[in-house]
């Protein structure tokens, strides 16, 4: 049997470098049709596709890639949407290297299939060709018409849960506290990684499934959770994320010029401060910017500062590059763009002038300890060794925690010691009819894991409703 030579893993182009570091345009351009066909050709079409098991929302990866091979691009997009309401988002921000592509069989002998880029291609192709996205053909299972379900938060978990329940035939309302939907997709992830028109498009698709979106409704403030039950919602899903920024709790932290990553990114992404004064929310443009942290959020903040016109941007991380939780691709991007990395330093004090304006940051030098029983090497201070970096703008990206605005206002809802909601893998909480998923249960994680949680909860909500109405499930 003649063996056809397998094409190389395709790589999409990026926008020109100069444009890249001075604008907020999306960096990777995505596959061309030719590249998508070549890449799809690489799929081995395994009998037992591991990639699907590696996907938290079980996207029918093999099927959609087959459809791309057959040049049925629109059908490919439709196929993805049977399981994933946010394909253009996932194709861009999922850590595929840790999920579907990690377990791709091809990875054993070659580079894995570029599943993420193919997903993005199918979704973008559909958006280009169709004005109105097509709804997938899914069997409705809602026991009655007009069963109302409330979703709190319109981030990845809430949107996914809403889409799945709407496809099952429920009447779904999403309550969002901000003036734009999307949660972290809108306020957190920058335009150059995830253009907001893409988020809007996918939210519009979910609305087209019949989901009602109520903006400017902060549950716990505008309305209490129990009022939703009083108003006839039969089940509630809480997907509010982990929105409260952690602080360093070191002297000088409240000086002017020190932002939490949450504030910095919210101003830029949600409020569009990068277009100030065309938009009304201002942002400080730093000369010497120091970002503290080593995750994706730190990198997003650093790359944003660079695009806003900073002369130098430094990422200060207390461990080494090996321990950085950020995606490798993002670290590479940041390096290419000229961001400076400083490892094994940890801030101990912010220094400011008489007007409380930041001037410098004092760091403690660190080293990694010998591995402990769990094999982890902890950063420990090198006694007496300090370094001061000049900075007129600092961004702290050291993680987030649960926002008590909602969790503390729900009587009878069990929280864990860190303030996150206690829920099982299907999102069932200590309160009947109340489900939760995403970062508010697990702590800060990824878009896709939150989507997986939303999906599982949709399943659990359906079981709960069917049981409540004593209807035997027949699918």
């Amino acid at each position, binding site marked *: 049997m003649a063996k056809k030579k397998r094409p190389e893993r395709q790589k999409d182009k990026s926008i020109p470098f100069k444009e890249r570091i001075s604008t907020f345009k999306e960096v990777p351009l995505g596959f061309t049709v030719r590249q998508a066909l070549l890449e799809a050709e690489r799929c081995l079409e395994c009998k037992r596709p591991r990639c699907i098991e590696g996907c938290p929302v079980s996207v029918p990866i093999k099927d959609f890639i087959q459809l791309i091979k057959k040049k049925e691009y629109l059908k490919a997009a439709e196929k993805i949407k049977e399981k994933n309401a946010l394909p253009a988002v996932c194709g861009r921000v999922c850590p595929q290297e840790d999920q579907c592509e990690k377990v791709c069989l091809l990875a054993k002998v070659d580079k894995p299939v570029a599943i993420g880029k193919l997903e993005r291609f199918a979704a973008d192709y559909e958006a280009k060709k169709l004005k109105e996205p097509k709804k997938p053909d899914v069997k409705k299972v809602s026991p009655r018409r007009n069963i109302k379900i409330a979703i709190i938060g319109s981030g990845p978990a809430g949107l996914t849960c809403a889409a799945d329940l709407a496809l099952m035939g429920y009447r779904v309302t999403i309550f969002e506290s901000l*003036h734009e939907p999307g949660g972290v997709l809108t306020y957190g992830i920058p335009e150059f990684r995830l253009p907001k028109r893409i988020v809007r498009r996918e939210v519009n698709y979910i609305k087209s499934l019949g989901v009602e979106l*109520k903006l400017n409704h902060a549950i716990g403030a505008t309305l209490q959770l129990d009022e939703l039950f009083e108003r006839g919602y039969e089940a509630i899903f809480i997907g509010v994320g982990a929105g409260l920024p952690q602080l360093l709790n070191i002297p000088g932290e*409240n000086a002017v010029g020190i932002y939490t990553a949450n504030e910095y990114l919210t101003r830029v992404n949600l409020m569009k401060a990068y277009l100030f004064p065309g938009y009304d929310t201002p942002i400080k443009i730093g000369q010497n910017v120091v970002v503290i942290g080593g995750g994706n959020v730190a990198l997003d903040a650093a790359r944003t500062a660079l695009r806003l016109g900073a002369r130098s941007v430094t990422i200060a991380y207390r461990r080494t590059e090996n321990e950085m939780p950020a995606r490798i691709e993002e670290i590479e991007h940041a390096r290419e763009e000229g961001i400076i990395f400083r490892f094994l330093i940890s801030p101990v004090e912010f220094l400011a002038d008489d007007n409380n304006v930041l001037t410098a940051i004092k760091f403690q030098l660190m080293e990694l300890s010998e591995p402990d029983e769990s094999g982890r090497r902890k950063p420990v201070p090198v006694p007496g060794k300090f370094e001061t970096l000049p900075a007129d703008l600092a961004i702290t990206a050291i993680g987030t925690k649960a926002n008590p*605005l909602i969790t503390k206002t729900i009587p009878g809802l069990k929280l864990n010691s860190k303030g996150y909601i206690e829920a099982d893998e299907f999102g069932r909480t200590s309160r009947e009819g109340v489900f939760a998923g995403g970062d508010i249960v697990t702590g800060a994680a990824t878009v896709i894991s939150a989507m997986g949680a939303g999906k599982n909860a949709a399943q659990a909500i359906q079981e709960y409703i069917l049981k409540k109405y004593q209807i035997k499930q027949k699918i």
Partner: protein
Amino acid sequence: MFVILGDDGILFSLKMSNFFQIIKKEKIAPNGFLFRIKAPEVALHAKPGQFFVLRVNERGERIPLTLVRWNRRSGTIDFAFQVIGKTTHLLSKLKEGDFLKDVLGPLGRPSEIKYYGTVALLAGGFGAAAMLPIANALKEAGNNLVTILGARSKDYLILEKELRRLSSKIYVMTDDGSYGIKGFVKDGLEMASREYDIAHAYVIGPAIMMKFTVAACQELGIPNTVSLNPIMVDATGMCGSCRVNVGGKTYFACVDGPEFDGSQVDWNLLLNRLSAYLNEEKHSYELFLKKKGVLPRGKEKKA
């Protein structure tokens, strides 16, 4: 449109909960307005001391404003503001019947209302608007109210009649002496403290006024509560823009406040943080006025 039954039997339309129409607009000072807008959910849940956030238009910033009055039956809320920049300028140009883009509330912890005995209400400028609901609630809790109301001049005094009605005594102070007594709120407090045994004071106004008034309270040994007004973005605890230092600890004014023990507040830090964007705000406002033809072109300073 569907109609639902509110928790106390008030009917209102929930479908309208996202249309924030201006019902009434009143000019109450040379640069200040009182608006009444439709915001049924906010009106239904509002409590004294709370605030809300609004956005004027698609490109607008989110600004926090204190709730002055609310009516659950009509689903309206009242708020007052002074024109100090582009956003408040735009807001002041809206007419009755127009809509605000976004309204989120009620936010912040409500005032801790209890019986103190005699409470001094120390309001500077538009702080009087924020004071009104607290005054009502304190009165209802049986407190004897002594109000000291301060303003630049007679024209800038607001809600005097309303506060007078609730108070057993009111001292009106103007910086220029154009009405009432010439002096600041803290001067009025000294006078009042000679006449009354003041158990507690509420201090609301511009940060600088609160700083000096709180210092006067401390000298007189009067425990006090202030309502802080730092810069906010989301105002739901998400961003930390509104961090304040109270008693050496960092708090988010939007969810931990806005009310704090005035004697514990780091006022200089608050003032510094409030002026963080002065240049940007000035630049944006001048650019806007120039475009509108209010300012001659080429005259604005560079930020």
